[in-house]
């Protein structure tokens, strides 16, 4: 028998290490320590009801356990084999005590559809993929279903593009299928570029065949025989695994001429991108694949009409493709039963920033930010206070505590002033300055703007300058109005998605954290203490004992004062390095 005690940050904070000790002591006293082991584990993802203790092999799950409960767990459960009722989880709906953790709702918080094989199969072995029903969906399509049937299934499933905009995938396929041409193309957009996002890379590295299979299914549905994967060159492992997968699929006759001995032929080539953010925009991506500059063009014409080399082209994101084979195998009814009314299925998120369990998660649409951050993500690092979460990368916005309980889907996030985007989620705590965060994202957009249209090229540069101005303490209230105006103009007049969404980080932080902007311009103060130019170091003459430690540590000789007398900092000379603050043993150096 094993007793597993959660050692996640949340549970540790509520003394789970003491639970381990008392359990061990109880077992020792009863002479059971050789038969029952106590093990501290990683986070169970159930921090809300922590500390948790799980008894194996019977899967009993105890919640909110205190060190004093160790005696009763050992006496009742370990010795007599009776679960301790009062420590069991109570289902909030049925009010029943749940003994077996497999019946607890919280396991359903994460459902892995796009990540179904990630971390489960060997990505370099096609047979492991086939054993997990791989290529069965393609087989079913080409032998049992017509192209129209396939499109119908995808349409009814309610699958929407996972790259960011959330366009209905089935509709996209239908438009491409209706356009007549001698050659059509299927393109997989693997140009993942949001800072902090790594979902697509993980899918390609962990389950490349699911994308290949889905592209072939799409080819069958829209009448294309060629596929292209546009992947950034800085994903070498994903490229290597894709190449292996392509080779194996061809060898098995699952790609190439006459797939599975039938009429349908389809093959895929790789195209490498140099890592420009704008190339994730589908028209820019197509131009880049054609060998031109990666610049977007006006839509219409949409790629479905005139795309790669002027032919009808269907572009979908990696995660969208990875969901397709399962939908064919398990049916659209199954897929559309998961999620919210307008956003079906699951979404993969890359959790990053000031969160304990940095990693990849996949949750049904409609899960709340609170569940993701505080339960699955294990809460904020070092017990700090949650401040904001940035979703959707440079095109997204910052959401606050007020938004923690909205069910996440494409429409709700848009209504809250952010976007779903590709699924990057950067968590910020009380130490982050929201003006600096907005500046960081603008820096990224300025760097990545292709320069084709003026609002994005010039406007974002000016917005970035204004933000820098504010963080240096030179801003005025009028600047804030100017900032908002400029952002709105950029949004309305830019050519492509990059420019149209680039002011979002500024606008959403202005909407939600206006007080911080105001503090920067009126009081010349950064509430989080991040903007160096607004920091001012002074010495409290009452506390200063004149030890001279600060003066000796100052690299620019800005501190003067007699030994055993009070010291002073010359603000003109001070470079705000903080050396004096660290040196002072008496807490006499103040930051404000």
């Amino acid at each position, binding site marked *: 028998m*094993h007793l*597993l005690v*959660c*050692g996640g940050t949340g549970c540790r904070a509520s003394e789970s290490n003491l639970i381990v000790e008392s359990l061990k002591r109880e077992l020792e006293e009863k002479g059971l320590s050789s038969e029952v*082991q106590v*093990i501290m*584990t*990683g986070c*169970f*993802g159930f921090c809300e009801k922590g500390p948790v203790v*799980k008894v*194996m092999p019977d899967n009993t799950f105890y919640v909110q356990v205190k060190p004093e409960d160790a005696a009763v767990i050992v006496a009742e459960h370990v010795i007599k084999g009776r679960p301790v009722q009062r420590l069991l989880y109570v289902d909030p709906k049925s009010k029943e005590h749940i003994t077996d953790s497999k019946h607890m709702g*919280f*396991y359903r*918080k*994460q*459902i*892995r*559809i796009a*990540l*179904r094989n*990630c*971390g*489960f199969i*060997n*990505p*370099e*072995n096609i*047979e*492991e993929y*086939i*054993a*997990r*029903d791989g*290529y*069965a969906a393609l*087989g079913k399509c080409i*032998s049992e279903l017509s192209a129209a049937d396939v499109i119908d299934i995808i349409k009814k499933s309610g699958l929407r593009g996972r790259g960011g905009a959330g366009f209905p995938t089935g509709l996209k396929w239908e438009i491409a299928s209706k356009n007549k041409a001698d050659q059509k193309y299927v393109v997989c957009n693997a140009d993942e570029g949001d800072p902090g996002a*790594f979902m697509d*890379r*993980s*899918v390609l*590295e*962990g*389950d490349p065949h699911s994308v290949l299979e889905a592209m072939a299914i799409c080819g069958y549905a829209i009448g294309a025989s060629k596929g292209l994967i546009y992947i950034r060159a800085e994903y070498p*492992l994903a490229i290597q695994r894709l190449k292996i997968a392509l080779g194996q699929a061809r*060898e*098995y*006759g*699952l790609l190439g001429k006459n797939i*599975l*001995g039938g009429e349908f032929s389809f093959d895929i080539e790789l195209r490498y991108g140099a890592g420009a953010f704008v190339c994730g925009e589908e028209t820019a991506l197509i131009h880049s694949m054609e060998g031109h500059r990666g610049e977007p063009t006006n839509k219409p014409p949409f790629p479905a009409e005139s795309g790669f080399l002027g032919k009808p082209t269907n572009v979908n994101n990696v995660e969208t493709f990875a969901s397709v084979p*399962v939908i064919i195998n398990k049916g659209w009814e199954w897929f559309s039963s998961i999620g919210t009314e307008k956003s079906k299925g699951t979404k993969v998120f890359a959790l990053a920033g000031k969160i304990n*369990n*940095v*990693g*990849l*998660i*996949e949750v049904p649409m409609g899960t709340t930010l609170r569940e993701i951050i505080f339960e*699955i993500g294990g809460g904020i690092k070092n017990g700090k206070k949650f401040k904001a979460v940035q979703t959707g990368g440079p095109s997204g916005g910052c959401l606050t505590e007020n938004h923690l309980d909205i069910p996440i889907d494409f429409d709700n996030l848009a209504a809250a002033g952010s976007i779903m985007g590709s699924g990057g989620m950067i968590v910020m705590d009380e130490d982050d300055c929201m003006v600096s965060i907005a500046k960081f994202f603008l820096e990224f957009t300025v760097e990545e703007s292709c320069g084709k249209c003026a609002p994005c090229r010039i406007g974002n540069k000016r917005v970035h300058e204004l933000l820098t101005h504010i963080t240096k303490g030179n801003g005025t209230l009028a600047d804030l109005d100017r900032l908002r105006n400029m952002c709105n103009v950029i949004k309305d007049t830019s050519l492509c998605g990059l420019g149209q969404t680039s002011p979002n980080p500024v606008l959403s932080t202005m909407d939600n954290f206006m007080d911080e902007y105001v503090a920067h311009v009126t009081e010349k103060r950064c509430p989080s203490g991040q903007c160096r130019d607004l920091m001012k170091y002074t010495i409290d003459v009452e506390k200063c004992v004149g030890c001279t430690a600060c003066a000796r540590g100052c690299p620019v000789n800005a501190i003067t004062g007699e030994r055993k007398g009070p010291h002073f900092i010359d603000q003109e000379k001070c470079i705000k390095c903080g050396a004096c603050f660290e040196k002072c043993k008496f807490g006499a150096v103040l930051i404000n």
Partner: protein
Amino acid sequence: MEKLKSLADLKKIREDAREKLDLRVKGDNPGGLVLVKVAMATCGIASGAKPIMEFFVEELDKRGIGAVVTQTGCMGYCYAEPTVEVQLPGREPVVYGFVDRKRADEIIEKYIKNGELVEGIIPVNYEKID
């Protein structure tokens, strides 16, 4: 490998491959092998998964334990890389995080040899779809 000519061919391969996978993990099979999967995506490799995988391959062989060591993709626990999943015959798989050489050695000696769990377990917190 000969090209698959029909859906029936694909189904046959699927059954064979499933059997092979099942054989490894079936409890009632006395010759059941231990299955060790090392997460080898960019995050895992960057945190040192490659030498850990080599360690398992060499040490399991040296210590005469019948095991299959394979690589797999990202399990999603990037904060705890390198991550390794160990499945003993007839048992549910267990994922271990922060696996360095010391912990890998402990996993072999305690868990694989005697079935005693060791520290570093990452509990499953998601639902599988099949």
